[in-house]
């Protein structure tokens, strides 16, 4: 074949647990070399989707092909070429940092000299060389996540799956992790990640889908999604009380095609923030504070679903 099949191709993909439909029929294509994201709040069906792509969770319905193979029949052969960084750490805490990589290499059937070489390179890559003889438990959250990434790279996967890679990490650890992931992208590794952080999706993803309640509600590059679904700018007005917000809402709605109340705030979507701000002042609306900013993926999610990502 001259045109390469997508690394991941899903059509009408569904996952049910009893009566609960976690993934309600989604279409996804991930191509070689791209960083693809699933953005959505907790419970949107992102992890269930990842577990199906990772060939550990059986598909309930629909079609799924990973690396051109069917997970139902060729799970072990697919998993041999995947790297997985799960949401919940599952490092082997009975083993040292080094042994975690070494035994993982053995699970993939790699010969010992190759394991030695790769484990050393990967520890260098995730900046944990000086911790190689340590036990896993005392490592910080960021170090554990980096070790898990190194572990997921032991088999030199064509596709690396990362489920909420920076959840629970402090800002510094997050940035270090993003930088390492970017290095992987430069090396040509295809990355698929889930996140409920819009900044993570914007920073890392070439293309993403926004998921909500098991459905895909939008798809595109971060830029495209913002251009398509949101205005350029957002004026955030924060009010002292919910009552004040309520009384200001009708007047604000007249100013702009779209306003979204979120807690004590009202977000006014506009292509010219400063002009809108001036109009707000003319109308006699008196918020406690104001902020004009560029629209983000968070706004896209809010506009499409009426809810915020951390709901």
């Amino acid at each position, binding site marked *: 074949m001259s045109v390469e099949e997508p690394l991941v191709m899903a059509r009408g993909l569904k996952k049910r647990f009893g009566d609960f439909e976690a993934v309600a029929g989604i279409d996804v294509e991930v191509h070689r070399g791209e960083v693809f994201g699933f953005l959505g709040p907790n419970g949107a069906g992102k992890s269930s989707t990842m577990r199906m792509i990772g060939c550990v969770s059986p598909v309930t319905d629909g079609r799924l092909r990973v690396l051109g193979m069917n997970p139902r029949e060729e799970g072990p052969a697919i998993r041999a070429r995947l790297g997985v960084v799960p949401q919940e750490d599952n490092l*082997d805490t009975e083993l040292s940092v080094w042994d975690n990589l070494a035994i993982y290499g053995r699970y993939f059937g790699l010969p010992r000299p190759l394991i030695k070489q790769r484990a050393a390179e990967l520890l260098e890559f995730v900046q944990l060389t000086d911790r190689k003889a340590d036990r896993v438990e005392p490592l910080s959250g960021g170090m554990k996540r980096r070790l898990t990434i190194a572990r997921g790279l032991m088999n030199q996967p064509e596709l690396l799956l990362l489920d909420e890679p920076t959840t629970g990490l402090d800002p510094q650890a997050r940035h270090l992790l993003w930088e390492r992931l970017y290095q992987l992208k430069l090396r040509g590794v295809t990355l698929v990640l889930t996140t409920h952080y819009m900044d993570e999706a914007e920073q890392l993803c070439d293309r993403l889908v926004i998921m909500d309640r098991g459905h895909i509600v939008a798809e595109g590059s971060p830029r495209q999604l913002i251009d398509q679904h949101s205005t350029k700018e957002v004026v955030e007005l924060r009010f002292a009380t919910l009552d004040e917000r309520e009384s200001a809402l009708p007047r604000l709605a007249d100013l702009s095609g779209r306003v979204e109340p979120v807690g004590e705030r009202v977000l006014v979507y506009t292509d010219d923030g400063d002009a809108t701000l001036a109009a707000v002042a003319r109308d006699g609306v008196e918020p406690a504070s104001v902020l004009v900013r560029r629209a983000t993926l968070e706004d896209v999610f809010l506009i499409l679903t009426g809810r915020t990502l951390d709901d």
Partner: protein
Amino acid sequence: MTETTTAPSLGRWPLARAVEREMRVFSKLWRGTIFSTFLSPVLFLVAMGIGVGGLVDERSGGVQGLNYLAFIVPGIMAASAMQTASGDSLWGVMAGMKWMRFFHGMVATPLRPADVYAGKVVWTGMRIALSSTVFLCIASLFGGVLSPLGVLAVPSTILTAVAFSAVIAGWSATQETDKNFAIVFRMMVMPLFLFSGTFFPVSQLPDRIEPLSRLSPLYYGVDLCRMFTTGEPRWADAAINAAVLVAMAAVGWRFGTRSFTKRLAS
């Protein structure tokens, strides 16, 4: 697909990889297990075999024509195999599933849940092979092994351990917490430990209760070990005893493969 993509090796023996993990952990932690797996059976041997045994032999001239030490050596061997296998299969499985979750890391590789399960059970058998061999050597130094056929007691304990491990590991995988584990030990492991012909012949039990001992899988393990260490093999019985344990292992295996798959790949 590009033709140049070569599939990496799947590892021809996924089960062996899972066992290798256990060996790697054991090679780091074996010192911590010396007491439970080696020393405590030896203490039993000294206390019961020599202490209690002295009294028994003095008063009644031994048990079933054997001195008491020779009587309980196979009992202790089989019973400790059961005990170690049960403990490993309860808490060891909960650790992999929930506490440390490393089983979940294993099934993200070419290993399948069935391999993880099999690795656990097979390793339990290997570990018992080691501890039983050590125990047999020590017991023979004390004069508690009466025949070279005694070496056959080692595979007997392996079979006993695998039968218990196969069932219990499978059951552990269905549990959300370890709150029932102490009950399993108190209500199952302890009674079996005591009433399976381990420390006294089951014929000592009241007539109506005695047949119940045949319901204990450990009874068959103890009987197997005893006929070998005392050098009085009854081959037909040996075949039946082994068949009971093999059947238990086979049923457990089927169940365990399913419960691990359900738990790790849902």
